[in-house]
């Protein structure tokens, strides 16, 4: 199972990075979301999968899943929610101010391409 997840995580990273490198702000934001999912699954996978019961202590259970990555991911999920919301508002503001949803600097590249 772990190697499947490793590949899946790689694929999520790839799609996320590809989106982040594109021009439109919305794509970039969605890219960060996918990247975050990739990171979460990577953390889970690193610790090994399905190695025991859920980390809620109960009698008669010997082995539990690793609780540490779960705690990390929980923190990360909530933070990334806040950050994504901030990105959205930022993107909206940028669009409103600049009249384009393409991020800074691409005009430079276009100029180079045209010249």
């Amino acid at each position, binding site marked *: *199972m*772990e190697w499947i997840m490793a590949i*899946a995580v*790689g*694929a*999520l990273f*790839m*799609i996320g*990075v*590809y*989106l982040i*490198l*594109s*021009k*439109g*702000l*919305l794509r970039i934001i969605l890219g960060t*979301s996918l990247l975050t999912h*990739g990171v979460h699954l*990577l953390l*889970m*996978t690193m*610790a*090994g*999968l*399905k190695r025991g019961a*859920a*980390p*809620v*202590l109960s009698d008669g259970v010997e082995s*539990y899943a*690793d*609780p*540490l990555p779960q*705690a990390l991911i*929980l*923190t990360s*999920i*909530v*933070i990334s*929610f*806040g950050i994504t*919301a*901030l990105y*959205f*508002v*930022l993107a*909206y503001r940028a*669009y*409103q101010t*600049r*009249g*384009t*949803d393409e*991020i*800074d*600097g*691409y005009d*430079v*590249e276009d100029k180079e391409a045209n010249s």
Partner: protein
Amino acid sequence: MLHIAILIPFLWAALIPLMRWFSRIHAGWAVLPVPVAIFAYLISQMSQIGSGENIVVEIPWMPDLGINLSFVLDGWSLLFGLLISGIGALVVWYSMFYMGKRTDSIRNFYVYLLLFMGAMLGVVFSDNLMVLYGFWELTSIASFLLIAFWYRRERSRYGALKSMLITVFGGLAMFAGFNLLYAMTGTYSIREIAAQASELVDQPLFLPAMILVLLGAFTKSAQFPFHIWLPDAMEAPTPVSAYLHSATMVKAGLYLVARMSPIFAGATEWFWIVSLTGLVTLTYGSFKAIRQTDLKALLAYSTISQLGLIMSLLGVGSAAAFYTDADQVAWFGLATTAAVFHLINHAVFKGSLFMVVGIVDHETGTRDLRRLGGLMKLMPITSAIALIGSFSMAGLPPFSGFLSKEMFFTAMVHILEFDVLNAGSWMLLLPILAWIASVFTFVYSMILVFKTFGGKLKENTLDKKPHEASAGLLASPILLVSLAIVFAFMPNLLAYNLIDPAVAAIRGGGVDFESVHVSIHFWHGWTPELWMTIGVVLLGTLLYRTYTRFKLLDREWSNRDTLNRLYNGLLSLLENGGRRLTDLYMTGSVRHYLIYILIFFIAALCGTLVFSPDIRLGMDNYAPITFYEVALVVVMLATAAAVPFARSRVNAILFTGAVGYMVTALFLIFRAPDLALTQMIVETVSVVLFLLCFKFLPKLKSTKERPVFKWTNLLVAGGVGVTVTLIALASMGSSPFEPISTYFLNESYKSAGGKNVVNVILVDFRGFDTLFEIMVLGVASLGIFGLIKLGVQTTPANKEGSQSLHRKSFPLVSNDVILRTMSRVIVLIIISFSLYLFFAGHNNPGGGFIAALMTAAALILVAVSFGTDTIRRVIPVNYRIMTAIGLSIAILTAAGSFVFGAPFLSQAFDHFDLPILGDTELATAVLFDLGVYLAVVGVVMNIIFSIKGED
């Protein structure tokens, strides 16, 4: 006491700005006690040093690195300490009359001056090379600040930067040299290195270390060809020039060369490099001085030349190290005595001459020799001082300069008998160069005094009518020139108390003072030295009479100098080259920067994977694979892959949401119920959020990028993906450390009283992380609030988008009857469930985060069904205040442990027998979780309402 003497100027410097409250008193009065006190202290130590006993202070600082604050007061550092504090006191006195007290920056001036004083004392007292280096660079910084004191002038800035770049360059070279010494000896202590000196000579690093250290000394002491900074440093106020750039700082190089003599003397390279650099500088500087028309520039070149003289004497004096026979050591060691004696004399006459030039400048408004002349009648006292100073500098009797000049000639004649190196007639070069330079020295000394004070007064060229300076201004130079006379008639007073201990310290190895003592006399017969002096006077007078015919005068300031052109060219080359290099990759495109970062990420991590032999990919016992899991993964990847191809915004957002739900399912399978709960609610809230913003975001453009653009992105993205996969596999294959998770599993119930380990980690074990996390959330929500509420300038070309988000009303209210009816009930169920999750959190899946998100989800549902007005009526809460309360509760709970003497964030729990509920476990962690709960609900609702546009 010694370390306190260094510390006091620094502490005092911090207090000087307070003088702004006493604006009627000149700030100099507050500064003056510092050098005077240090001077008095050092004088009181003179007898102890004179008896051959050094004062040593050792304070451990970084003993493991061999760096300690160890300070030593011996004859050599005592002499410098007296120069620094003595001249310092006179300069502070002089500056009080030279610089007006009304100037706002006068306090800055004294702060820099004290900074320099402390640093310079640190340089000469430090025994530890690293400490010495630190103080050394500090003097460069203080010098930079003082040269740039009139920073509005372009030339001041230019001079300051130049001096800084050159001396810091040398300082860095010296730093490297010091470290080479450390590499050879294993200690930074000068005394300990000197004790091992005999073993060093044959080491391969010996010569590099020597050259690097000398680079530091030569740049600091303005030796050829590094002298070019000193004339430009004359942009500093004249008291500074007198103090730093003639009497003390530029002598730090001499100090270092002498200090290092016990280590390096005895090497032929040392002898030649130091002597010849000194002599070339001496000759070059004296020749250039004749060509100057600005009095301060003349003095600057004269200083360069005199520093060269002392440097050459130190070099020649090192010949003594080749001998063991006492007579021969004394014969060649005379040069060292001459060096120390001339160093004192130079400080005396050059200090007074700088002050005289300052007075002339002050009274006439110019320092241009072509406009000056005939001031003798108007300023008799000043011209008398100038006369004595100049004659002493020219080496004429009956002033102290004559004595040291004679000793200089003696030393240069003695060196002809130095036969160790078999240099033969080349040795003749030394006295000849010395003699030629002395002729030039004579000439410029005469120019200085007679062109300024002799001849006719050129009244029409002056801006104001000059008259004699005030007694205050004259006091310092008068004191200095009277010293030049006192030393001339009582040289042996100086010799016993200062020169002999200093020479003994330079010679090193516990030489007793008797053996280095040199009796200094005015008259010593018709010796070659005397004939040399007579020759100097004769040829010098001739040259002085005729030099104007040679058209030697420098018209322009310094740009014509080849070395200056080299410096300027090199500097602009560096600047332009740096700019071009930066422009090459700093394109201003965020995407480019991201690509650099990602390529570095790929290269660094893949490189590590390839080059680390211990890393193994994959693991032995993979968890079993089931059909559902594979199906989930496939669906997840398929929806993710669809995002880049989505043609509309809604699709892209929904695809992303779908990936989130697939991840939720995976969490469930991977035994992470807390995560699954959280992810599910977050995903739901997120989609609502996205759709709220949705209307205001631009439409997705059909992508028509160039293929290069697309393929680059794909390639980089693919590289990142492969790298991450490899990392995931590698992390499975190798676990170099014992995982700490076992600790959490074992201790969760025992020490924290909770069965849900994830929740216990969040609120207890790693409570600090959580505390910061909710703070980050709070900041993010405030950021969103600010972005939306605060006006942002909009471009006129963008009228359509200029309507602010909240003004544009949009229907968050649903008309769906079924939804409205259902939600009345469902909301209550959700909220009850969220409360259950909150309280269950410590022992079962749940907790503050999840409960908060669920509550928020319920509130959003109400908002969607009935409109925000309803929710405002029903729950009249300001969500920003709620966030603040939540944060406060969390912090107070965390800080509450202080009351019980426990560290921050210590949690406690116990079991209580409560009515109705029975045996209940209460933990302070629950209180902390309540803070988290309130903060997160506040944040989420604040975000939603900010975007929705109602508050």
